[in-house]
């Protein structure tokens, strides 16, 4: 059953109900998190950078407007005052070249953190990311390592138009030598970014434009999270839901309803998009035998495409039903709000897919 096809033939009326639902539930969930919360996600990221810069003088930040302006989402606000303009380097708008510069600095002993003002702009640096950051360690036969973090906002925001609403994971996942991580809460944002900075490999670190204002209580002591471990968000025995980044929060909306209906979802936030933590994924599939993948990436050649192929390779005998992939439509993200909402997966689709799998109506 292909959910996205079902969606494009749905009547406009049921679609508009869908949006009312999405908006209402999404804003309540944000509010709930805010009430119990302490640290905003963008500040959690800033704490991670600040702590790592204090800990290791080789660590520095570079990118557009990271210094005086404080970063387009304020992740590096005022850090230049503390560390100076060379350690928080405002660059000209020259993505390919400053990314290449960071590779050179990393090869020669520094630990750069590149902020992509929007991750989409790194398309201009694709060559340096793929050929140099990704492949150079191998090409050089292990002569050099590239301890580099490339981080920044991405994903589909609110009516930002196609170029600023990119789903880049798909483009980068084929590049050998890159690690890819997607954070989704203030807690994991901080712990994962610190780990990424300490890692000796190039790490693409995805943040989502619509998650910067999430709030959460954070431990006051120093903590670092493993880069290669998925996070079990909730346990259940009926169906496995694999997701990451903002879609984790759409899944949370869906599971509220599913819980009420007695459908137990085992929700896993992948965290590491490359490599995938198949240990955690496999343990869940052995329990539920049914899988839904929920992603914001495009359906063709996306993370879900790769993931479902790997699940087939590794766990085919465990599956009681075909894997369902809920992904974005294969179109440039449209500006119009209605079309944009239709482009990405909405919670009712997740509910519907889980119901179908749970009752074996496939």
């Amino acid at each position, binding site marked *: 059953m292909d959910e996205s096809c079902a969606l494009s033939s749905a009547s406009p009326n049921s679609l508009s109900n869908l949006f009312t639902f999405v908006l209402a539930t999404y804003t309540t969930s944000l509010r709930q998190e805010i009430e119990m919360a302490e640290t905003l996600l963008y500040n959690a990221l800033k704490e991670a950078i600040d702590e790592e810069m204090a800990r290791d003088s080789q660590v520095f930040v570079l990118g*557009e407007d990271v210094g005086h302006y404080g970063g387009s989402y304020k992740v590096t606000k005022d850090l230049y005052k503390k560390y100076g303009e060379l350690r928080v380097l405002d660059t*000209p708008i020259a993505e390919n070249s400053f990314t290449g510069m960071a590779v050179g600095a990393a090869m020669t002993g520094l630990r750069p953190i590149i902020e992509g003002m929007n991750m989409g702009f790194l398309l201009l640096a694709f060559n340096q990311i793929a050929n140099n950051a990704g492949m150079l360690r191998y090409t050089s036969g292990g002569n050099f390592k590239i301890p580099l973090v490339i981080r920044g906002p991405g994903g589909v925001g609110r*009516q930002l*138009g196609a170029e600023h609403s990119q789903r880049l994971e798909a483009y980068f996942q084929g590049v050998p030598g890159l690690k890819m991580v997607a954070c989704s809460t203030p807690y994991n944002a901080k712990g994962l970014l610190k780990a990424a900075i300490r890692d000796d490999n190039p790490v693409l670190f995805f943040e989502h434009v619509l998650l910067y204002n999430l709030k959460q209580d954070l431990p006051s002591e120093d903590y670092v999270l493993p880069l290669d471990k998925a996070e079990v968000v909730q346990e259940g025995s009926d169906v496995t839901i694999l997701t990451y980044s903002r879609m984790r929060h759409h899944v949370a909306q869906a599971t509220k309803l599913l819980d009420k209906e007695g459908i137990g979802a085992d929700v896993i936030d992948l965290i590491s998009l490359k490599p995938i933590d198949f240990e955690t994924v496999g343990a869940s599939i052995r329990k539920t035998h049914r899988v839904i993948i929920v992603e914001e990436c495009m359906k063709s050649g996306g993370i879900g495409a790769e993931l479902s192929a790997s699940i087939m390779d590794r766990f085919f005998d465990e599956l009681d039903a075909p894997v369902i992939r809920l992904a974005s439509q294969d*179109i440039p993200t449209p500006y119009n709000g209605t079309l944009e909402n239709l482009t990405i997966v909405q919670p009712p689709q997740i509910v519907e897919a889980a119901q179908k799998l749970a009752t074996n109506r496939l």
Partner: protein
Amino acid sequence: MVQERERVLPSFSTTQANITREDGLIVYEDMVLGRLFEDKCAEMYYRGKMFGFVHLYNGQEAVSSGVIKAMRKDDYVSSTYRDHVHALSAGVPAREVMAELFGKATGCSKGRGGSMHMFSSEHNLLGGYAFVAEGIPVATGAAFQSKYRREALGDPNADQVTACFFGDGASNNGQFFECLNMAALWKLPILFVVENNKWAIGMAHDRATSQPEIYKKAEVFDMAGVEVDGMDVLAVRAVAQEAVARARAGEGPTLIEALTYRFRGHSLADPDELRSKAEKDFWFARDPIKRLAAYLMEQNLATQEELKGINRRIQATIEEAVQFGLESPEPDPSELYRFVFAEDK
């Protein structure tokens, strides 16, 4: 800290201007249209009628009107994310630009593009490009097309010129230099128009470039480069006319650096905290619309009443555009995939 001193604006004597009454009024009307349209956008954005990143052009009108109104209707224009006013100068009706901002099916990009992606093949508007500098190679390609038609296909009518608009920030990107080289190498009919408004979001121009006088970068490519007071539409027009004539004659490209200023923040989401009051005051005092109005009246080319009449007429055009945008239909959800491929008309 930064940019405390203003660059000396190149002087231009109005005696060099010799603009006719008719042309003067066309240019005046175009600038007023740009200004009032953008003011309306701010209002509509705050009223929740348009979304995303909206970059307004207030203050820079002399560049768009000065260049585009010195060109022919069949010439090409390319722009950036700050593209509403270039679209208007290129002749895209205000209602189609406003409808696009409202995400409607009647917008010039059918509601798919939004503020940063205005397109109109009918008006040879090659588009608003949201990524810095990416419009430069595209515009260079359009200019190559003119040369190709004229020289490879022998079409004597293929003398269209392309105007490529971008900012000071874009002039530090590799695409700028690569295209300057190719355009000069092949003598392409193109105007590279840098709107140097001193800032790239929060990055002061002087902090981003080793040689702040951008027009000088033309010289190493053996290309004509000129600086012009971008707050004086008559000066911009004079420079543009010369560059257009050179391009049309097959004598190659020109790099025009227009010294200008944006009167608002980078986008409607920008708190605009880094620019000093002294700097803003320096430029506010050089409002290009007031300057042209004063000139037209001094030279007895128009009366105050006439100019007021134009303002009223433009205001009505914009109200009509808003009405049209509001009443226009949303794109049909069943057409989500329309325009992905060339077969979709």
